[in-house]
């Protein structure tokens, strides 16, 4: 068994730590000498894999760690490090970006990275193009994607939103309290409003964050005409239904030719009374049909 002093290992090139989000190794296994050895390049003792092991060893006050020397092609170095890491589909975007940049700096072609190393990183789908998309994000958005506050696609959608507005939303308790899908919806709507009403965006987002339902508020701002029709219909509906026992429904999205009226009744008298009430709906016809035509 080859061992090297921990302080020597720890003084190596930290920029080669490609797995900063790796889970911490088990302290007991490490102290007991049952952990896989740190992988070191034979020619110059560069740590190829095991920075998380070295960090824990330092914390535990261990003096030396077992190492395994490796000498091979650059792509073999990355491949063995990825296999030791054994976290397919669980690498953070930050790690993916580090890996890709390091590999490119080591003259590994992107096509080779995708073909040889990609399957160790994700089990399905492209790695390079998705990582490049992440790399193109602003630092704030990178952070929230890494923190899984929003997904990559949602982050990309707000690329045109002024960073200050995005940061205000991200910092707001009201935003953080939303579920993941509601945050996605919020971001999507914010991106679209940024295109529709760029000069009023900040004001709208602030108002949304203060409202009871932020994404509902944004939806109403994004779809003002549909919201207006909905509100107008709701006003008529409230009047029609109040105390009448009747139920009136508009076609979905006001797409269609007719309204539906429901007249529940449980006696002859009730039927007569409700039919009488139903006749009064005629007074709302102009308003109702103006929403469809």
């Amino acid at each position, binding site marked *: 068994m080859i061992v090297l002093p921990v302080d020597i290992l720890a003084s190596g090139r930290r920029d080669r730590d490609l797995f900063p989000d790796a889970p911490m190794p088990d302290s007991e296994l490490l102290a007991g000498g049952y952990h896989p050895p740190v992988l070191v390049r034979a020619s110059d003792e560069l740590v190829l894999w095991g920075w998380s092991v070295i960090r824990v060893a330092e914390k535990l006050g261990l003096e030396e760690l077992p190492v395994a020397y490796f000498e091979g092609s650059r792509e073999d170095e990355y491949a063995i490090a990825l296999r030791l890491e054994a976290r397919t589909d669980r690498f953070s975007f930050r790690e993916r970006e580090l890996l890709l940049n390091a590999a490119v700096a080591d003259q590994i072609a992107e096509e080779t990275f995708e073909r040889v190393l990609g399957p160790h990183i994700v089990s399905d789908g492209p790695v390079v193009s998705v990582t490049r998309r992440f790399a193109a994000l602003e630092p704030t958005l990178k952070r929230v994607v890494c923190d899984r506050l929003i997904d990559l696609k949602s982050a990309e959608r707000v690329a045109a939103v002024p960073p200050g507005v995005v940061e205000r939303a991200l910092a707001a308790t009201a935003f953080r309290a939303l579920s993941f899908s509601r945050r996605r919806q919020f971001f999507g709507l914010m991106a679209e409003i940024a295109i529709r009403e760029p000069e009023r965006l900040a004001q709208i987002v602030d108002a949304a964050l203060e409202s009871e339902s932020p994404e509902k508020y944004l939806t109403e701002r994004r*779809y003002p005409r549909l919201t207006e*029709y909905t509100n107008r219909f709701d006003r008529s509906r409230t009047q029609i239904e109040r105390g009448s026992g009747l139920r009136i429904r508009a076609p979905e*999205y*006001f*797409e269609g*030719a007719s309204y539906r009226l429901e007249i529940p009744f449980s006696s002859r008298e009730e039927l007569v009374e409700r039919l009488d009430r139903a006749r009064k709906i005629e007074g709302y016809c102009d308003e109702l049909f103006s929403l469809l*035509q």
Partner: protein
Amino acid sequence: MSYFRSYSELFNEVYVERAASRLPAVERCRDGMPGSRFTLVEERRDIPAEHLRSSTLFLCRPRGEVFGRCPGTSGHVCCNYNTLDLYLGCTLGCSYCIMRTYLNFAPVTVYVDAQPGIDAVVRAAESNPGRQVRVGTGEVGDSLLLDPLFRLSEEFVRAFAGIDNVTFEMKTKTDLVDHLLDVDPKGNAVIGFSLSVPSVAQQEDGFSSSIDDRISAAGRAARAGYALAFHFDPIIQSETWSIEIDALVAKLRALGAYRVAWISMGTVRFPASLQESISDRPYMYDEFVPCRDGKFRYLQKERIALYRRLRDLLRTVTDAPVYLCMESAAVWTTLFDAPPVAGPLFTRLSGIGNHPRLQKTGSSS
């Protein structure tokens, strides 16, 4: 045309199915694309994967049924149009084109043998005496973009010229009509021009001809004896739409006397699958709602207002039939009092199946 000097600029590779290689249209293509590389293949799947793109041209005999009923769109009113496959795919690059969702990674295909299509339409005309067979080649590609090269449309025009109940339409966003002007006889042939207000055409119609050039071409076609059709589709509303549409219809009025076979109107619509690829287009940020066929359209009331305005303007120019493309019965009824089930132009023909190619995809634009 101003956007390319020769067809060799549009296509990097030309693959020719061996069985079609001696057809006159292929010879015309060779003459029109001197210096281009032509490669003989036994069939489409012999085209290398790296050439499966729209800058590749594939010339072949027709596959399967080339003539069929336009599939329309579910839950909406069909105008009972029939389609004839000729040019499949398009290099114009209009932002809203439905074909972007399924033809992007395919070569532009030309069915260089017109005869099977001619035979199918003649059979339909014979089996539907007294009914008008409306058929066009503009469903899955521009009818005229490549036509000066292949000159296939004139074969159809000549073949149908003597058949009273066939109206053959060539639908285009180009001004490439000059090669058709001297075709004689023309019979009921129609040249249909897709029109938008100029600001939209400039931004969204890719490499199509300008609206002025299209109208000018319409004038030449009309003077040569063709009936015209105009397709205001897709209508994309904007702050200037109302002013621009006035001016556009005024230009149609200024063309003078001409025959108009029909006019269609359709507002912009798109399936969810196209949404991402057009997310950079400003019109995407208007208000759209999902309709019964799953496509997104403007709110019904807004669509009706656009149609009403255009219909009223068109009535000052022509009394030709105006219809809606892929619209709901509710909109039809509001605008025209009833769907066009009984009109002679819109009568459904018997013995014609749905368009097989588009049936596979489930919808068209």
